[in-house]
C-alpha cells in the first residue's frame, strides 16, 4: 500500500520537475545544457548527503535538526586536525567523520535511551554543536589553504564534465536505497514509523534501530563537511547553516510523511532535484533569488496537497469519515492545482516584467549607447547579502550607472552571508555567459576558483567591497582598506574619549570576516597609540538591530564605566544608540560604521557622535561603470586613470580602483547624504 502511494507522489513530483525544466528551458539562458546539468549536481552533493541521511529518520517519524550544525562542527574539527595537529589528510578525514558520528551518537543516546522527542533533543544539539564550533574557532578562525589534491575532490572533474564529488553522492544514494528498501533494517525503520509499539511487540530492537539512523546521519554530516571544505576551499564554523531545513524540505517534498512510515530514497532524490533545478533556473533567468523561497514554499505545499497519501491523518484510514474526506479532497485538489497554475503564470509574468523593464531602461537612461552587434552587455553584480541596507544603498548607484551606460544589470546575491551560495551564483552566471562579473567576496579562497574559471571563459571579473585573490580578478574596486577603516574608527573614538577610558565593541556576527579584519586592525593601533584606552568587551549583534539593543543594555550594566560604544555593523549603530538613549546615559558616546539615513535622528539627537562610511552609492556606481568599461575594453590592464562619469577621474593603482577616503559623518554634514 505504501509503495503505491509513494509511486503516486513520485509521479506528481516528476511532473513538477518536468514543468520546471520546460519553463526554464524557455525563459532561462543556457539552461538546458549538459554542462549546466552537472553544475547543478555539483552544488547539491552536500545537501543531498544530508537529505539521504534524514530520509530513514523521517520514515521512522523522527527528525534531526542538528545535521547542519554538526556539519559546521565537523568542518572545524577537520581544519583543526589538518592544520593544528598536523595529521595526514586521511587521518583528518577520519577525524571529521568520527566527530560527526560522535555527535550522532549523542543524539541517538538521548533519543533512543531516554526517549526524549527528537525535535527537542536536536533543537538543543543544534545550538550545542554550532556553539562548540564557534567556541573552538573563536568565531573568526577560517581554515583554508588545503592541498590541491584535496581540493580536487570538490572542484575537479572526471572526463571534463562530471564533477568529482558526484560519485560520492551516487554511492551514498545506492547504499541508502539498499539499506532502506532491500534490508531487514530498512523494514524495521518502516515498522517503527508505522507504529513503534507494534514494532516492539513484533520483537524488533527498536532502540538500536533508532540509534543507528541518527548515528548514520552524524556520519553523513561529517562526510558532507569534508566535501564542503573541498568544494569551497575553507572550513569555518558557519558551514552548513540552514542546511537542515533545506534537507527536510527535500525529503518531505519527496513524499516522506513526517508522521512516519512513508518515504523513499528515490522520492528524496526527486525532491532534491526539484529544489535545485528551481534555484538554478531562477538564477539563469535572472529572476531574484527571493522568488526561489516563495516558489519552494508553494511547490512544497502543492506537491503534498496533491498527493492523496499525505493527507490521511494517522489511524483514521479505517473510519467511515474517509469517504467524506475524499470528496473534500477533490475540491481542494482543484483549488491547489489552481494555485500552482497561478504560481506558474506569476513566474512567467514576472519574467515578462523583467524583460520589459530591461527594454525600457535604456530609454529612461537617455544617453544609451547600443552595444556591439546589437546585444546589450550584461553586467552581473553580487553583493555579500542582498537584504542588507548597506548593499541596498550600493544598488541604487549600480542601477544609476547601468541606466547611464545602457547595460543590463543583474543584481543578485545570497539573502544572508553565505559563501556557498556565492559560488553557486557565479557558476550560473558563467553558464549564462554574462559579459562581466563583479563580486563582493565573502570567502576569498573559496570563490577564487570559480572566478578563475570565469576568466578562462573570457568573462571580465572584478571584485568590489571585499577582494578575491589577485590572480582571480581583473580589477578590485576598493572603497577603503581594513587598515584604513580600523584606523578611522579608533582615531575618531580616541578623539571622543580624549584617548583614555573604557570602551566596548558591538560587532556583526562573531564569524563575520570584514568585522574581524577591522577589529584585527584596531587592536594593534590601540596598543601602540592609545595605551590609556581599554577595550573591555566585544559582543555580537548578528546584524540584528534588536540584538544589538539588548547587548548594549547588558554592556552598560556589566561595565558601567564604559565611556563609548563602538558599533561596527550597519544595524548595530541604531540599536546601540537606542539602548544608550533609553538608559538616559548622556555620558556614553556611540559611534561606528553604519549608514546615514538610519542614524540621522540619533545624530541630531546627540546620541550618536560619528558615523564612518564611504559613499556606498558611489561605490555601486563605480563598480558597474568599471565592469562595463572592462567588458568593452576601454579599461585595459595597465590603465592609470578611469573616467568615471559623475565621479570624475578616478585613480587606478595597478589592479586597484580606489574610491577615496572614508567619510566621517556628524551633525554638520550627515544631511548631505541620502542612502
Amino acid at each position, binding site marked *: 500500500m505504501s509503495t503505491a502511494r509513494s509511486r503516486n507522489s513520485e509521479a506528481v513530483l516528476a511532473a513538477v520537475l518536468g514543468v520546471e525544466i520546460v519553463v526554464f528551458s524557455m525563459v532561462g539562458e543556457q539552461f538546458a545544457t549538459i554542462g549546466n546539468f552537472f553544475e547543478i549536481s555539483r552544488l547539491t552533493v552536500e545537501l543531498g548527503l544530508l537529505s539521504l541521511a534524514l530520509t530513514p529518520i523521517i520514515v521512522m517519524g523522527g527528525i534531526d535538526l542538528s545535521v547542519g550544525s554538526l556539519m559546521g562542527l565537523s568542518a572545524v574539527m577537520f581544519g583543526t586536525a589538518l592544520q593544528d595537529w598536523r595529521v595526514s589528510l586521511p587521518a583528518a578525514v577520519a577525524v571529521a567523520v568520527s566527530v560527526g558520528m560522535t555527535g550522532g551518537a549523542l543524539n541517538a543516546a538521548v533519543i533512543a535511551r531516554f526517549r526524549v522527542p527528537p525535535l527537542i533533543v536536536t533543537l538543543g544539539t543544534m545550538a550545542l554543536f554550532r556553539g562548540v564550533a564557534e567556541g573552538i574557532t573563536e568565531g573568526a578562525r577560517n581554515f583554508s589553504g588545503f592541498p590541491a589534491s584535496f581540493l580536487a575532490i570538490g572542484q575537479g572533474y572526471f572526463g571534463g564534465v562530471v564533477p568529482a564529488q558526484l560519485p560520492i553522492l551516487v554511492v551514498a544514494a545506492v547504499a541508502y536505497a539498499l539499506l532502506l528498501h532491500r534490508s531487514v533494517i530498512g523494514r524495521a525503520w518502516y515498522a517503527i514509523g508505522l507504529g513503534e509499539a507494534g514494532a516492539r511487540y513484533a520483537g524488533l530492537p527498536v532502540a538500536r534501530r533508532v540509534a543507528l539512523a541518527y548515528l548514520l546521519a552524524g556520519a553523513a554530516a561529517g562526510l558532507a563537511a569534508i566535501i564542503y571544505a573541498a568544494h569551497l576551499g575553507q572550513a569555518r564554523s558557519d558551514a552548513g547553516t540552514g542546511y537542515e531545513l533545506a534537507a527536510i524540505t527535500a525529503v518531505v517534498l519527496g513524499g516522506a510523511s513526517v508522521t512516519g512510515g512513508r518515504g523513499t530514497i528515490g522520492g528524496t532524490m526527486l525532491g532534491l532535484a526539484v529544489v535545485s533545478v528551481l534555484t538554478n533556473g531562477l538564477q539563469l533567468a535572472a529572476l531574484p533569488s527571493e522568488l526561489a*523561497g516563495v516558489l519552494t514554499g508553494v511547490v512544497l505545499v502543492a506537491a503534498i496537497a496533491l498527493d492523496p497519501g499525505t493527507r490521511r491523518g494517522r489511524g483514521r484510514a479505517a473510519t467511515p469519515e474517509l469517504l467524506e474526506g475524499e470528496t473534500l479532497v477533490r475540491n481542494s485538489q482543484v483549488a491547489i492545482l489552481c494555485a500552482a497554475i497561478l504560481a506558474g503564470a506569476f513566474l512567467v509574468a514576472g519574467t515578462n516584467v523583467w524583460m520589459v523593464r530591461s527594454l525600457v531602461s535604456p530609454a529612461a537612461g537617455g544617453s544609451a549607447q547600443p552595444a556591439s552587434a546589437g546585444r546589450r552587455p550584461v553586467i552581473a553584480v553580487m553583493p555579500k547579502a542582498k537584504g542588507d541596507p548597506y548593499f541596498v544603498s550600493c544598488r541604487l548607484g549600480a542601477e544609476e550607472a547601468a541606466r547611464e551606460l545602457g547595460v543590463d544589470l543583474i543584481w543578485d546575491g545570497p539573502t544572508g552571508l553565505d559563501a556557498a551560495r556565492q559560488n553557486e551564483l557565479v557558476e550560473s552566471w558563467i553558464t549564462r555567459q554574462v559579459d562581466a562579473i563583479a563580486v563582493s567576496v565573502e570567502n576569498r579562497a573559496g570563490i577564487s576558483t570559480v572566478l578563475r574559471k570565469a576568466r578562462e571563459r573570457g568573462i571580465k571579473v572584478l571584485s568590489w567591497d571585499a577582494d578575491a585573490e589577485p590572480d582571480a580578478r581583473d580589477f578590485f574596486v576598493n572603497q577603503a582598506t581594513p587598515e584604513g577603516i580600523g584606523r578611522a574608527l579608533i582615531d575618531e573614538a580616541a578623539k571622543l574619549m580624549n584617548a583614555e577610558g573604557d570602551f566596548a565593541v558591538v560587532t556583526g556576527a562573531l564569524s563575520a570576516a570584514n568585522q574581524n579584519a577591522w577589529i584585527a586592525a584596531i587592536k594593534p593601533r590601540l596598543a601602540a597609540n592609545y595605551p590609556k584606552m581599554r577595550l573591555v568587551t566585544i559582543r555580537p549583534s548578528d546584524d540584528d538591530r534588536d540584538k544589538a539593543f539588548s547587548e548594549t543594555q547588558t554592556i552598560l550594566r556589566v561595565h558601567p564605566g564604559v565611556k563609548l560604544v563602538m558599533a561596527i555593523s550597519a544595524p548595530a549603530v541604531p540599536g546601540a544608540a537606542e539602548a544608550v538613549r533609553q538608559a538616559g546615559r548622556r555620558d556614553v558616546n556611540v559611534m561606528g560604521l553604519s549608514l546615514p539615513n538610519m542614524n540621522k535622528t540619533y545624530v541630531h539627537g546627540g546620541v550618536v557622535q560619528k558615523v564612518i562610511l564611504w559613499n556606498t552609492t558611489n561605490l555601486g556606481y563605480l563598480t558597474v561603470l568599471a565592469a562595463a568599461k572592462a567588458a568593452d575594453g576601454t579599461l585595459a590592464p595597465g590603465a592609470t586613470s578611469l573616467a568615471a562619469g559623475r565621479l570624475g577621474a578616478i585613480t587606478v593603482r595597478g589592479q586597484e580602483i580606489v574610491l577615496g577616503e572614508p567619510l566621517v559623518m556628524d551633525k554638520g554634514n550627515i544631511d548631505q547624504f541620502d542612502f
Partner: protein
Amino acid sequence: LLWRWSAVALRRWPPCTSLSPYRVETALGLVILALAAVLAVAAPRFFEPANLADLVLANLPVLIAAVGATLVILTGEIDISVGSTFAVCSVVAGTLATIGAPVPAVALGTLAVGAAIGTVNGLLVAWLHIPSIVVTLAAMVALRDGLRWITEGAWVQNLPASFQWFGLTQQLYPTIAVGIAVLISALTAWTMRSTRAGRVVFATGSNAEAARLAAIDTAAVRLSVFALAGVFTAIAAIVNAVRFTQVPPNTGLGFEMKVIAAVVVGGAAITGGRGSIAGTVLGTALLGMSGPALTFLGASAYWERALQGGIILAAVAIQAITRTERAVRRAAGTSGVAI
C-alpha cells in the same frame, strides 16, 4: 549508574512527589532558582531593578508569541513560521504608522494580518490535512523571502512620534506592555484550565480520534489555535516594534526557535496533550535570563551559544528523568519516538 541514582533521588524528592501535576514547573523553578543563586553570589548587580526591567521588557515578545505556540503544540501541531510572521507584522505595523494611521488602526491592521497568516496555516493543516511542520516550513520560507523581495531590505523609517511607546512615555510604556503580557497569559491559562474551549484543545492533542468521537470538531480546534497563534505573534511584533523608532525587515530571524524552545523547556509535550502556560512562562524566563546571566558571569561570547544549547539539553533531560519511570511503567512507550 549516575543517571539512575539521580533519577531515583529526584523521584523521591518531596517537591516532585507532593506536587506531581506540576513537577515540570517545579523542576524548572528550581533550575531558575539555582541560576539565580549563582548570580546572587557571583554577580549581584544582575538583580538591580533596572536590569531586571530591561530583561523583562526584552523577553515580553517571546513570551506573548510562546503563549500562542503553546496552544498549537498542545494540539500536537507545530508552527515554525512564527519568526517570519513576526517580521511581516512588524513591517506592516511600521508601514501603517508611516502612512498616518492612528495607533488603534495600526494595532488592528497588524492583528488582522497576523490572524490572516495564522488562518491560512490553519486551513492548510485542518482542512487539507497537510502536516503542520510542512505547512509552516513553507510559510516560513515563503513569507521571509517574499518580505525581502518586496522591501528589498529597506528599513521602515520616519515613523511618527506617536509610534514609539504607543505615544506614551518611556516610564509608562513598560507598565502597559507588562500588563498586556500578563493579561494574555492569565486569560489563556484560565481558558485552558477552566473552560470548554480550553479542554477541547487538550482533548484534540491527547487523542484526536477520541475527541472526534466525543463530538469535538477537531478541524475547527486546529484552525482556531493557528489563527490565535498568528494574532499573538502580531501582538508580540507590535510590543517589540514600538520600543524603537525604525523597523528593520530582517527582524525576528531565529525567533521561532526561541519561542519553541521556551515552550518545550516549559514542559509541553511536542506530541500534544500536555503542557501549561505557567510552564511556558518559566521556560521563557529561564532562556531569557540565561544569555545575559552568562555575560554577567563573564563567559566569553564565543562559547555562549554552546552553553545555551547545554542549558536547554539539561532542562529537557531533567524533565525526561522525572518522567521516564512513569513512561516506562505505562505500556513501554506508546508515544516514545515521534515528533
